[in-house]
Each structure stands twice: as structure tokens, then as C-alpha cells.
């Protein structure tokens, strides 16, 4: 899939599966679909971060985006999708657990309406399905639901 992504243009998106829902990410920010390697955890206070994985000698933070997108943590995942998150001081590879294989599609982005959640930048029409396109930076900066936020400093391993 990586070779395909590297040849992709601006209208190319990676469709990812989270539980029974599909979302899309611009392929330009996606770097890798990684196998379910070990999640390493240690005490911290960053709410959406569930731990780190090691890929190609680098330490990659893992975000539990299911709590934002599905309203609950997803305990079942088969892969990690690694994409680039931008910060004011740089960018870093960031992983999100996904439930199944990802798919590369070419489609035109339909702009989001004004009352859409900030982590949704629009949607794609793929067949009969309307798929939300994620604003990765906004998604990873989101605050999790209160019941998830309460696990602050829950040191997981």
C-alpha cells in the first residue's frame, strides 16, 4: 500500500475501518499501515494517548481515536495506521489503531458544513456510502469524552 500512497495525488484518500464505521484520511499524510505490534505504556497525563509503539527504530505515539469517533474505546484492532501529525514545533508520526485493512480511493472532497465537528473536514462519496474525511491534526488534539478523560495517569501496560 505504501508504494501506492507515494504515487497518490491530492484527491487520493486512505479509507480506514474503526469497528463498523469507515473514515478517510488524505493519503498525503499517511505513511504506513503497521501490524499490531506491542503497545508500550507508562504513566502520563495526555488524555488521548494510549501508549507508544516501536516502528523501524522510532517511537511512535498511539492515540485512542475510537473514544472520539465512536464514543467508546475500541479494544479490537488489527493494525496501526501511521500518519503525520503537525505541531507548532514540527511534526511526528502518529498511530491510530484500525480494525481492518485500509483501502486507497480517488474521490473529490465534499466540503464540510459549518456545524460539522472540527475533526471532520468533509466527506467523500464512495459508491452509495458517504465517508467522513478526518482532519487528523484536529482529531488528535480533541478532548476525549469525560468518562475516558477520568483515566488520567492510568498507567497502562
Amino acid at each position: 500500500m505504501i508504494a501506492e500512497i507515494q504515487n497518490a495525488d491530492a484527491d487520493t484518500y486512505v479509507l480506514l475501518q474503526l469497528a463498523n464505521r469507515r473514515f478517510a484520511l488524505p493519503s498525503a499524510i499517511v505513511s504506513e499501515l503497521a501490524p499490531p505490534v506491542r503497545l508500550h505504556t507508562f504513566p502520563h497525563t495526555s488524555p488521548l494517548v494510549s501508549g507508544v509503539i516501536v516502528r523501524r527504530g522510532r517511537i511512535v505515539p498511539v492515540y485512542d481515536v475510537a473514544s472520539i469517533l465512536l464514543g467508546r474505546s475500541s479494544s479490537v484492532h488489527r493494525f496501526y495506521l501511521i500518519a503525520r501529525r503537525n505541531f507548532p514545533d514540527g511534526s511526528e508520526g502518529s498511530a491510530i489503531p484500525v480494525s481492518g485493512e485500509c483501502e486507497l480511493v480517488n474521490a473529490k472532497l465534499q466540503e464540510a458544513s459549518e456545524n460539522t465537528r472540527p475533526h471532520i473536514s468533509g466527506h467523500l462519496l464512495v459508491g452509495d456510502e458517504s465517508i467522513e474525511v478526518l482532519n487528523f491534526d484536529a482529531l488528535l488534539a480533541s478532548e476525549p469524552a469525560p468518562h475516558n478523560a477520568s483515566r488520567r495517569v492510568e498507567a497502562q501496560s
Partner: protein
Amino acid sequence: MKIAAQEKGKTRRARHSEQMILFTVANRMFAIAAAAVQEIRSTDSLAVSANEIEHSEILKVRHTLERSHQTYYVVNAGAHFGLPVTRPTLVLILRQLRVAVLVDRIERMAEIAVIHALPLAFAGEERRWYRGLTYIDDHVIPVIQPAGFLTTDEFHRLDSAINAVPAPRHLLGAFQA
């Protein structure tokens, strides 16, 4: 696309490897530079020399220790990191700081050549707690920042609580060993 190329320099490669003490608290492993630790003692041996702080506002600090005419604050590492309550058996007396740290046990020593920068994703108190992360025997282990156990403000409040005579170096929480 090539994230690896964009993230050069985020991993600090030490010119020389660094000796670390690997210790556990509530079954979590941490690394601290051996050079940052002055002495390791059993908690039993401190039973007579530790003093309880009455009305401590800082819940992770309940006792003080007198060493070399200095008052050391005993930080419960489990409380500091928000871990479940355990029964610490050892205390790490730090160098350069008036801090002693209660831990469960020492696992072993290890030489570390590479400390990875803490990913930017970690934006909370952990940025003060850790110097970075290291990877040993298939485990990612946080490397402790010794100065992160107590802030300057916490030193102030603890000094007030024990009614210590304030001296500039006390307030900074540092002294010359």
C-alpha cells in the same frame, strides 16, 4: 510522506553510554541515571531517621530525611506518577537535589546509549517527569528527570510546612554535595 527523514534529530544519541538504574513502582519500570543517585537504602533503615510532615499540602511527600545538615523530602514515586498504592522497600537518595524517592525495588543496572525524545504527543506533566524514553530488551522505559519530582513551588510549600529557615539554596531545592 517520509516521516523518518523529517524527524531527524529527535533521538539524542549520547556520545557515551550512560549507566542507568532500572527500578519498579507498582510493576512499572523506570530508568534513572546512576549519576543522579547518591545512595540507595532500605526503607527499614530509615524508620528512625525519617520525620513525618504534619499537614503536608503535597500528598506525595509525607516525610523528610536529614542528610548532611540538609532536609530531604521523601517523594512517594507511586503517588508522583499516579500509580496504585504499593509498599515501597527502597529509597533512592538523589544527588544535587534535596529529594529522596520511595520505590518498590531495583531491577538491575543497564547501559543506555540512546535516549529518544519524548514524542510531542505527550504534552502534560510527563514532559517534566521524563528526560525521554529508552528501549531495552523490547521494553520502552521512561528515563526519569530527577528535577521533575518536585517543582520549585512545591519546595517552597514544603519548606514552609516544616517551618524551615529559608535560605536561597534551600528554596531552589539544590545544594552543593
